[in-house]
């Protein structure tokens, strides 16, 4: 069966689901969401972090072609930029629906408090969005121009900054020992780069032309890069968890243990580590096995693992009570320290994924994004 057609069909299905879910979200507010007053952020925030990471990472990957002019990646710059644009849109939509007052988002722009890392991040991503559109325009209309190089240099710096800012958003919170580690803002740019590499692997592996002479070498290099980044990711996880456990701060230990051995242990061990890391690493390490569509599917698994990793960063810190006895005080459905996304949250998230995929496919078909279509 034609892969492209299948992806189109899946995207349309998810997008329709998303429209329904968004309609329900707008009509019912937060009443059908499963998060509460203690686990106050859920799937939507985690997916914002994920999509934002893909956006920043895709820009980093685009710089290989459009800034550093790496021959292997020639012709991939514009498609990577388009990936970044669509992912950024998904991320911003995901965080917007999470707000208590959707109509007040303008206040972050017109009445900002710049002392807040969240404000810095919102402004950073907004500026990043402008840079993305500008660079894509220049890449199509004025390829190889000095303006494009300047835009790429500025964009690369911004993409690293905003990736780190996402880590800082959580890392600055001294009240949550699980987040409050200096490693976090350092880790996130690496995660973003991994996301960008995996996204390009999906694009080239699943949707790329088999006739493209560079495709095989691109997949090989992206596969190696994915494996290297996976090693770095695992090292970061080891550093993160071992420091927490050796440090023995009770709230921190509780969060790590919850993640590793709690009710949702399988989310970490099965989805994030086995499916999202080890399987793709093993397959991509075998050049013969990891050619073409197989490599593309491995990219999908890596992205899934990264999305799960975002959930595993956000939730454990919130699922540990700030004061131990809070679990038994004035409890109620919204005053719990457990969380599993509701049907509405899954619907919105799958829908946003569908919007991103559909927008990407339409752009890929309608915009001059391939290398040989340089104006």
């Amino acid at each position, binding site marked *: 069966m034609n892969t492209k057609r299948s992806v189109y069909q899946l995207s349309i299905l998810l997008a329709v689901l998303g429209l329904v879910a968004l309609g329900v979200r707008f009509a019912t507010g937060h009443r059908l969401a499963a998060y509460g007053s203690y686990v106050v952020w859920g799937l939507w925030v985690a997916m914002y972090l994920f999509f934002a990471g893909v956006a920043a990472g895709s820009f980093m990957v685009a710089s290989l072609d459009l800034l550093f002019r790496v021959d292997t990646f020639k012709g991939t710059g514009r498609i990577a930029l388009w990936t970044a644009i669509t992912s950024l849109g998904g991320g911003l939509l995901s965080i917007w629906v999470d707000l208590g007052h959707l109509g007040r988002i303008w206040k972050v722009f017109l009445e*900002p408090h710049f002392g807040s890392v969240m404000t810095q991040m919102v402004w950073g991503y907004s500026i990043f969005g402008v840079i993305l559109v500008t660079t894509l325009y220049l890449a199509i209309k004025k390829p190889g121009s000095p303006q494009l190089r300047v835009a790429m240099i500025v964009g690369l710096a911004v993409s690293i900054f905003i990736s780190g800012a996402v880590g800082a958003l959580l890392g600055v919170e001294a009240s949550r020992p699980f987040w409050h580690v200096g490693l976090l803002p350092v880790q996130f740019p690496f995660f973003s780069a991994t996301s960008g590499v995996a996204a390009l692997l999906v694009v080239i592996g699943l949707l790329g032309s088999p006739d493209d002479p560079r495709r095989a070498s691109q997949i090989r290099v992206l596969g190696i890069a994915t494996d290297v980044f996976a090693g770095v990711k695992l090292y970061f996880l080891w550093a993160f968890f071992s420091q927490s456990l050796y440090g023995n701060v009770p709230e921190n230990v509780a969060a790590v243990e919850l993640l590793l051995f709690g009710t949702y242990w399988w989310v970490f061990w099965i989805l994030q580590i086995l499916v999202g890391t080890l399987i793709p690493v093993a397959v991509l390490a075998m050049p013969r096995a990891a050619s073409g569509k197989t490599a593309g599917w491995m990219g999908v698994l890596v992205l899934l693992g990264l999305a799960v990793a975002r959930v595993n960063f956000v939730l454990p810190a919130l699922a540990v009570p700030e004061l131990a006895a*809070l679990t038994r005080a004035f409890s109620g459905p919204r005053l719990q320290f457990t969380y599993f996304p509701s049907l509405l949250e899954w619907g919105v998230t799958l829908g946003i994924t569908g919007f991103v995929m559909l927008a990407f496919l339409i752009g890929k078909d309608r915009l001059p994004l391939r290398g040989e279509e340089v104006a």
Partner: protein
Amino acid sequence: MDKDIIISMQEELARAIKRPAKERRWLMVIDQRKCVGCYACTISCVAENKLPPGVVYRPVLEDEVGTYPRVSRKFLPRPCMQCDRPPCTNVCPVGATEKGAEGVVTIDYKQCIGCRYCVTACPYGARTFDFGEAYTDGTPEGLPAMVGQARAGAMERSASFEYGRSWPRKGDDSPVGNVRKCHFCLHRLAQGMLPACVSTCIGRATYFGDANDAGSTVARLEGSPNATRLKEDLGTEPRVIYLV
């Protein structure tokens, strides 16, 4: 017969509100040895501020200590600490929450966008989110002779008067979709009334007043050798003191 401490604190409050706001330093002192865990403070706060499900300003934390047969229970009412160095204010992306002139951390409901970043920043779990729900949601309307959802829910839908304004619960308007927290009943203080939790404490375990008034009850208790604050090591400088 000794004067009830509530009457004394009312008189101290009357003195305090005559002074400029900047010269006042509201302080709450909770004597854990006197708290019997009756939850009157929790419930009076819910009633005073018309708090919906999922929103609680002053839960009472219970802890069982010791081993049988030497076992006892401890109760820790936990209002907002009104920190002098609050971790929750600087994180707000639109400056909707701030340390007010009287030292109380306030939320501007019309400015809050409901991002809940401040909730994650509070080390005491003192901030909660208003999901727009009601305790009477899903209850039957009832027969004509019975009180049904509409009448029973009237209390929930009636306006609260937090921050000196009227906040009826209509659709998704504020305070629905906002983060909410204890504010030491600023609206009551402005009228010379003690916070609801203080007035209703049957064990007289909660004291409140202006610590800048040397003759006040809280000023006297603030320096007690058994006075302590929650998570002192974080350096948040809470304005709620516990006597242990």
